[in-house]
């Protein structure tokens, strides 16, 4: 993941150290566990890890030696088994992508990447479909003016994805009620799914 490379560069530890870190713990920098690590650290800004954050992360993992760190990072994905924790992490993941000060939304490309990293293990099929939908929308927008032009999404919409995957069965879309409090993008996604199924 690009953002991790950036933050490695800006880390107080030398870049070589970070690479070594990733090698040592045998975790790819695009792995979700690095993002979980950032979450544990409560890292505020993408690409910047402060000394305090680093310390906090290590303390959370209970790791003060390299082998301990490696073991801890390897096992990080288990941290998310508890639903409340996962929700918190899920929202954090979005927050982490906000780079500018008053930024409220994240571009579609990053959203798709993030979906893959964060939700794919639990909802592989759904994530594929959603990513396809988002990318299709973006392509169409380039060609013609599509009414539902989603070039960037906000936190509320991001949150609604997880809730949707959790609560709605993709095989039972007939019961989906668009007059409910689902976000409009989810309404449109469901319509698109229904159309897709017909063809």
């Amino acid at each position, binding site marked *: 993941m690009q953002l991790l490379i950036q933050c490695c560069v800006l880390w107080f530890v030398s870049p070589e150290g970070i690479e070594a870190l990733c090698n040592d713990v045998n975790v790819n920098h695009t792995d979700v566990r690095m993002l979980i690590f950032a979450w544990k650290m409560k890292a505020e800004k993408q690409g910047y890890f402060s000394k305090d954050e680093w310390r906090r992360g290590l303390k959370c993992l209970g790791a003060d030696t390299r082998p301990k760190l490696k073991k801890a990072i390897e096992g990080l994905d288990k941290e998310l088994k508890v639903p409340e924790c996962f929700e918190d992490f899920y929202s954090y993941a979005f927050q982490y992508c906000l780079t500018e000060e008053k930024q409220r*939304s994240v571009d579609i490309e990053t959203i798709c990447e993030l979906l893959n990293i964060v939700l794919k293990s639990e909802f592989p099929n759904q994530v594929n479909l959603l990513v396809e939908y988002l990318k299709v929308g973006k392509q169409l927008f380039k060609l013609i003016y599509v009414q539902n032009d989603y070039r960037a999404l906000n936190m509320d919409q991001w949150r609604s994805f997880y809730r949707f995957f959790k609560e709605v069965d993709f095989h039972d879309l007939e019961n989906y009620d668009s007059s409910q409090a689902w976000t409009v993008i989810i309404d449109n996604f469901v319509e698109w799914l229904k159309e897709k199924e017909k063809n």
Partner: protein
Amino acid sequence: MVLHKFGEKLYSGLVATMTGHLKEIAKSVEAAQGAEFYRVESQKFIECCDCGDYLKKAERRLNEEIDRVSHYLDPRTEKKITNVVEKEMIENHMLRLIHMENSGLVHMFSDDKYDDLGRMYNLFRRVPDGLSKIREVMTEHIKETGKQLVNDPERLKDPVEFVQRLLDEKDKYDKIINFAFNNDKSFQNALNSSFEYFINLNPRSPEFISLFVDDKLRKGLKGVSEDDVEVTLDKVMMLFRYLQEKDVFEKYYKQHLAKRLLSGKTVSDDAERSLIVKLKTECGYQFTSKLEGMFTDMKTSQDTMQGFYASHPELVDGPTLTVQVLTTGSWPTQSSVTCNLPAEMSALCEKFRSYYLGTHTGRRLSWQTNMGTADLKATFGKGQKHELNVSTYQMCVLMLFNNADRLSYKEIEQATEIPASDLKRCLQSLALVKGRNVLRKEPMSKDVGEDDAFFVNDKFSSKLYKVKIGTVVAQKESEPEKQETRQRVEEDRKPQIEAAIVRIMKSRKQLDHNNLIAEVTKQLQSRFLANPTEVKKRIESLIERDFLERDENDRKLYRDPDVVSLKTRFGSNLESIDDGEYEFVEFICENMVSLGASNLQSIVGDSNILPFYLEQGIANTIGCLQREGCLLRGEHNLLGEAFLVMASVAGIQQQQEVLAWLLEPLSQEWTHSEWQDKYLSEPYGLVYLFSEAQVMWSSFHSVTFFDKALNRSGIKKANWNPENSSTPDSTPINPILIKYFVLSGSCSYFPATSHYTLSLVSICTSNFTWRDPSCNDHE
């Protein structure tokens, strides 16, 4: 002997019993016979009679029975017997009668058969469900015919005809309900809901109704008595009430009204105003405030023109200029594209511009050359003299021919700089319309091409001296225009929906999704039918901007956010304000700034919300922060500006309130005796005043905003009397106090404060009339 003595008693008792028995027997026999009798008879009749005749017969039979009972039988039997007739003759054949071919209910409606309908009503009301059956069929029929009417392309070609047809249809059924159905309320309601149903099937109904009104107010009501005018307007209002998209009507009405006012083509000012009053009663003040603004502008412009010519007597002999100065925001939005006016006119226009700006500083004028008209005196080749009434564009084109005999399209385009599509239309109307072809075109083709050449038509003739060529009549919109208007309407709806959501959430604090949608729809239904998907989108937008938040646990629940972290939004600007104030400033600033001025217009146009903001929002905030001594100048300016925007788009009453409010701190201070003693009892007292930055700043700001507010409101400064303000508690500011400030030219002793002084002086002198500063009396 026993018989004689007691016989009577016994005997009369016996008689009574016997009579009673006999009556009972008679009743049942009658009933039994009756039922069978009527069953047979009704069958016979229904086979051979049409509906009307059958009903006559049924009625006759019924009346006969009632008659018979009253003559021969116990009145208590009437009900039993009539029940039989009703059941056999009416109830059993109801549907057959209603749907009878060629004579049933629908035919009675079509042919206005009041008698038959009345008879049916009276008979059917006697049986259960009888009236509801009639009502059902009536409703269906009206909906069907209405649907055909609004979808018929032939009818839609002429909007005025179309609306007239609607009115005729309503009249027809009103008469039927009146003459035949006894003014039955339930039928009236059925009629209304049917009309509401089919009128809204055609999205162009609002536009067409406005065009109908336009036609009436332009010429249709010419010479009509005042009472008849009222009748027509009331009928229009009745149709208006059926519309779901009243805001679309408003948009078109505004456009058409603008054209009527500007071309001076309205039949009666009173009629116009009467309709506005009716609309205001129906829809509230917000609906008509801008419309009234248009009338005000027309009147003000008249006064301005008088002033102009009074101050420029040398211009009386030249061409007469009439300028209408339109306040942006009250009139339909126009793109301001100007063209090159003929030299005589542009010089005159410049004179006007400098005159106007001389008396109204801080305003911007832009000429709307696509909306004007001109009267030209023309002499043609053979000596014919005519007066031509043309549009401004047409005038620009024609005046060119004073200096040239032949002009090509390109030359005209270059000289006038009129946009191409308008120019083509303009030349068409000057050269290609029979009876109005003051120009001649070569080649003589039907359309205007870029290679064409134009000449004055020396052979032009017309029976009339005054020839009208201008084209400013309101017409049915073309397809692209219609799309544009529809788009603008949709855009305008967005802030209205947002305002409704914010309003509701502020008062309910938390609400679930479905109820929120229902509430919003209800609040907006007097203007348009809110689309639930669009409302959802607005909710999401408001969530993104932190006006609303979703409950953490229940995603179906929305909350009005209590305190939002200001620091993350404004950074370090507001460090000096303590946490308690954050909420206010936050809310106000966000509201004013991020909703934007145009959004503001729709919020503050509603007279319900302005007091809310006034009371709970800005006034508190500013007051609160001032008292704490920590109102940053930036915020004060921001809030004040926002306030002014609100005031300028609200109506006169609101503006008065705002002005009074703005002066409130001044009036409180300046009339306070302690304050007067301290600062105004002697010239040096002002020194103290000016050296207290806090006091000085707040006074300065107040007076500045007051001045700006007056400017925006267009109220003539010399005429503004604070005593006319509608707020009951506002103390009128004492102009004499201001005089003291002016007299404080002596404050030039104090260079540090002279800057303030000069500003105050200039503001005060322009705002108030006051006596000669050189006279030294104290009051």
